């Protein structure tokens, strides 16, 4: 398998509420209060990424990737179906910013999204290896399963770093 070629491939774009599982690079662009959650299987070099918008699904099932409470079990189950073991999973998350302070009903959705993700992961006895959440700035998150599950976060000025 030629890993560099995979790494240079155009990433799969994960829009709001969407998810993807595989070994190809994935990217969620312009996360504000949304969360980009990545789960990497370090034994199998595959991974899953989801672009979560809201904390609670309140019983809705048509877009499970949109809500923290349904997105986390969705990815864990899909990875499990593909043969991943819980102990091999490396979880990272980024996003959950508050772009507009003191505005509108100011529900601080970003913070609630991050809290819900943490809570559901804790229920599943999975710890978060790295996270970069909160603040006032948008983030673009890229995920490279074949490159050791590398996760990079880019800000509006173009500066990127690994988490």
């Amino acid at each position, binding site marked *: 398998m030629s890993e560099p070629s995979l790494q240079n491939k155009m990433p799969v*774009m994960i*829009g*709001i*509420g*969407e998810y993807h599982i595989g070994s190809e690079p994935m990217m969620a*662009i*312009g*996360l*504000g*209060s*949304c969360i980009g959650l990545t789960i990497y299987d370090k034994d199998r070099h595959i991974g899953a990424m989801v672009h979560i*918008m*809201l904390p609670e699904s*309140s019983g*809705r099932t*048509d*877009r499970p990737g*949109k809500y923290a409470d349904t997105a986390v079990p969705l990815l864990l189950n899909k990875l499990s179906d593909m043969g991943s073991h819980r102990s091999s999973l490396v979880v990272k998350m980024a996003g959950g*910013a*508050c*772009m*507009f*302070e*003191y*505005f*509108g*009903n100011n*529900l601080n*959705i*970003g913070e609630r999204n991050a809290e819900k993700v943490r809570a559901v992961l804790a229920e599943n006895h999975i710890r978060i290896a790295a996270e970069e959440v909160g603040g*006032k*700035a*948008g*983030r*673009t998150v890229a995920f490279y399963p074949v490159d050791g599950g590398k996760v990079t976060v880019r*800000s*509006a*000025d173009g500066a990127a770093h690994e988490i």
Partner: protein
Amino acid sequence: MKLSSVQLDAMQELGNIGAAHAATTLSQLLSSTVEMSVPRIKTVDIAQLVNYIGEESAALVVFELQGEIPHGGYIIIYISRKSAVQLTNTMLGLTDPDRPLNEMDESALLEVGNIMASAFLDATAELLGFVMLPSPPALTIDMAHAAMQSLIAQMQDEIDEVMLFSTELVCEEHKIDSDIIMMPETSTLKTFVERLENLMKSS
């Protein structure tokens, strides 16, 4: 909510009237000509939003629609980062197009946004026959998608798609390109359409 072609035409005309007033105020502010595009109406699935409003850095001055319809949706004045500098340079009498934006720029952008949004809403509210007011503004200068996504997340209705009414306002002389975008809640849109249909019947 799907709109018929007649309803789309009516909404386009509403956007046209609002944007024309916003363009006039911008033109007065800059003492220069401001050209206006035909208003576009787009229904966008939230998963595809990034194809319309991407990662680019922009100034967004946002307002909640208030008045007789509380939490009616949002009005967004979208100005690319480059245009934002051009705009505040023109207002503040500065010339460097590559300088960083500071607090003075932020105040100026809030002010321009306020004037444009108020003009847009005054004109549309007058036509519709009810009171619409902009909330106090909020500003971000960051990734445009991140800002829009955050607004969509806090909308009242649980939605998978948004309807965007956008009109481009361009000032050639000062190289300023901006968009005025209305993103109504579904209930607000219904009210708009009902009012417009009544107006057409009675005329």
